[in-house]
């Protein structure tokens, strides 16, 4: 059983905590030891959110050591850039192409650069930037980035999609189960499986 450090990053309101809950529960059910950690509080008000999920035979610390993430799932492209340093040199980076402009840009003090994706790829040519923007439009729901990302993650492990969907269906509100099932499949197809 290989240990993996999975880092989820994005912006408050994108469903990052729920995504990390779902994957932690999934890995627990298939027999891994799991620890996870994130910071609540000030970060909830439109700020940066990061969640650490660690799985393995036996996991001690709930925090991923800097530079030791095996997988990063980023829900927003500026956040991908912010957290790149946290990923191992041979780690997997999956990023959304969604752009969420922080309100501070309105003050004119900062500019959200146009070339975020280029900057990511310049530093990490192997990063996968998924067209989540179109996927959300296609699915008709802008709240399912988290389950798309779980779909993407599922392609990196050998477990059956049904097993993942079992946990997802239990975790999301009843009336949005169908769109989340589609979102999961979308995540898988965006990764080419």
């Amino acid at each position, binding site marked *: 059983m290989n240990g993996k450090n999975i880092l989820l990053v994005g912006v408050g309101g994108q469903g990052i905590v729920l995504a990390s809950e779902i994957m932690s529960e999934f890995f627990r059910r298939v027999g891994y030891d799991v620890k*996870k950690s994130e910071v609540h509080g000030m970060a909830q008000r439109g700020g940066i959110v990061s969640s650490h999920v660690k799985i393995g035979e036996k996991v001690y*610390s709930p925090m991923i*050591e800097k530079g030791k993430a095996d997988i990063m799932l980023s829900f927003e492209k500026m956040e991908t850039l912010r957290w790149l340093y*946290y990923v191992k040199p041979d780690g997997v980076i999956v990023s959304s192409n969604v752009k969420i402009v*922080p309100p501070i840009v309105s003050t004119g003090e*900062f500019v959200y650069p146009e070339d975020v994706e280029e900057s990511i790829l310049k530093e990490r040519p192997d990063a996968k930037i998924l067209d989540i923007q179109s996927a959300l439009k296609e699915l008709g729901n802008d709240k399912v980035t988290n389950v798309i990302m779980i779909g993407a993650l599922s392609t990196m492990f050998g477990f059956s999609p049904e097993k993942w969907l079992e946990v997802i269906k239990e975790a999301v509100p009843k009336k949005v189960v169908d769109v989340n099932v589609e979102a999961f499949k979308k995540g898988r197809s965006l990764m080419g499986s």
Partner: protein
Amino acid sequence: MKVLLSGNEAIARGAYEYGCVFAAAYPGTPSTEILENISQYKEIKCQWSPNEKVATEVAIGASFAGGRALCAMKHVGVNVAADPLMTLSYIGVKGGFIIVSADDPGMHSSQNEQDNRNYAKFAKIPLLEPSDSQEAKDFVGYGFEISEKFDTPVLIRLTTRTSHGKGIVELGDRKEVKVKGFERDFTKYVALPMNARKRRFVVEEREKRLKEYVEKCELNRIEEGKGNIGFITSGISYVHLKEVLPDAPILKLGMPYPLPIEKIKNFVKRFDKVIVVEELDPFLEEQIKAHGIEVYGKEFFPEIGEFSPEVVRNGLYKAGVLKEENKVEVKEKAIPRPPVFCPGCPHLGIFYALKRARAKIVTGDIGCYTLAAIKPFEIMDTCVCMGASIGNAIGMEKVLGSGKGIAAVIGDSTFVHSGITGLIEAVYNKSTITIVISDNSITAMTGGQPDVRTGFNCEGEETKRMDFKELAEAIGVEHVYVVNPINMDDTFKIVKRELEADHLSLIISQAPCVLYPQKVKREKFYVELENCTGCALCSKIGCQAIYRTEEKTEKGHYKWDIDVALCTGCGLCIQLCKFDAIRPISRKGE
């Protein structure tokens, strides 16, 4: 059955399984979820108290009545609760009594990072420090047992990562513990000097017995390992150390106060060198050294900030234990994303009014509204602790010679927590400042816990709503005004008039939080871009739904737009637009 639980959920589960019958708390990150989760167990009566002192006092009452009781709070909350706690140490308990302190190393959402292990030594009470969720649950059981066996309150100390980190926990059934009932015992329960002087010796005697107990207590265990360097650690530092050095010989202290000195002596003897790995203060290290035992610690590890696996790795590198350090550096390539007020937050209206009325000094307090200290408002000048805004403003007035233009801003929950006494101070000592209660009728910052303004309690039952106006008038405040901050002109007129007046005034700025107890649903607004002149007045309200477009007017001003997905329809910005550019959605396509 095994489930994933956070440390806070595990404490709640422990309270359930180990027969707790009463719990009280005041919300505060990272402790809030403890009581929130306890409220799901109907076997435990629970309540949000107005502050940590009252929460502790009601839990003490429950213990005196012979029931197992628990109170929970963030680290700075223990300062508020310290008064009853210090004397409870003398009195002791009847039903088991646990106080949970959730510390915040690194100050993720706190004003300081005090190390509350010191309170155990200060109050001379046992300290339990879990390292993960399973231990958090188990230690509640140990805590109640130790409390009853040694007739003492017990402090369980968590930190942000043990509180909010999740791990796998094996669940058990509830063991009912009989409520013993209250029996009058004058020499124990009445802390008169004549009794307290005798109890003081009881405390010393108890410490002696506890010192024997910790030597054989299974919570203080040795994990054998490889190498000639040993480690002593506790709490979250233990799991970071295990991650970095899985095979190291470790003395893990689940009960780090009182210290098991003999156990430590025998452990230290076996190694060439022993290193203490502990976050924040050298709490263990100093006590160990005071016994003449040679150990190392803070020469390698920082006293400031939160530990993480890399901090521990780099400390071990400095100590010569590891050959490589973690040199990964944070690269600041991204623009910042500071926290902001929610779109349509009623605090926006009152801060806009204070800014427009040119308040000279605004003393602040603890809550979402402390965000007014940063961009875009930058109007709040101070923030010390819960309730400090009022006292700080009065002190400034006394020294500067006038209360004109000085405002104190405090939220409803914080006002009830520690602001009422400040208001009494203002009346009694003839202050002329302007006090603003920004009343959104909920404890919003910590995730929407009900308070005395909400109308229901922690178990969801309907209860009384406190009327601040009546309260203030009873205290003797002569100028009390209730405003709706969404009505910008009215609010501004009253704020300006009262700031300039030569008397004490209280402005109660009342409008519900947009998130809690439920998300507000109102008609939203949009911008008819053709009408926008780029005056940017709407942007001054500091609403994150309003953003600058790339489009310019003929005069070269950037036009502003509303992100309709974020808009909550509060109607503040429309009051600022003179050009009919901001409109309710229903007017779209006119």
